């Protein structure tokens, strides 16, 4: 039996939560589980194109340790999940409107488009929803 899709609602701009979302998403995707990630609120700021890791990630003790050690970068992990598994990512249309951003403001080759919360929630009824 196919695994139920994993839906991840990522809204925190905290590095540790973005990292955890990227780890969950990439490992689930490469384990034959469909993953759907919806990025909203402060989390979207971490996906702005052209930022350095120091500009992109803000957090506490583990943010510092992640950046000081050979821990896979969250953006790269999401990319690997997309490349090696069934992982889609959507930007919340409301926060994109508020920021007056278009898709080209976001990191290349990661997002599949914008989506509204209602559609994401309706889709999420078919699987397991995690909020970070």
């Amino acid at each position, binding site marked *: 039996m196919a695994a139920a899709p994993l839906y991840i609602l990522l809204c925190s701009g905290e590095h540790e939560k973005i990292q955890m979302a990227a*780890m969950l998403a*990439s*490992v689930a995707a*490469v*384990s*034959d589980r469909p993953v759907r990630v919806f990025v909203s609120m402060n989390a979207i700021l971490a996906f702005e194109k052209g930022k350095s890791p120091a500009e992109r990630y803000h957090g506490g003790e583990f943010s510092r340790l992640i950046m000081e*050690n*050979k*821990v*896979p970068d969250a953006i790269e*992990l999401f990319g*690997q999940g997309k490349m*090696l598994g069934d992982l889609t990512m959507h930007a919340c249309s409301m926060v994109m409107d508020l920021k007056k951003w278009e898709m080209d403001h976001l990191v290349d080759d990661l997002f599949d488009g914008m989506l509204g919360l209602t559609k994401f929630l309706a889709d999420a009824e078919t699987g397991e929803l995690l909020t970070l």
Partner: protein
Amino acid sequence: MQTIDARGAFCPGPLMELIAALKLSAIGDQIEILSSDKGSAADVPEWVAKVGHKMVGVTDKGDHWSIIVEKAK
């Protein structure tokens, strides 16, 4: 046999490196991954069983593990 040296990389780096290598391999090929990540010795066999490849062996080398996987599909 191809060997990937992922020592020093943290979770889930070694697993992702293994998966990328398996994707480029032929069925029957064996790949060894060297990992110092404490979770890899359990995580890699779990992933291999989940997706249907074959575990050849896990060996504790003291400061790292040698994990050998055969591509089965």
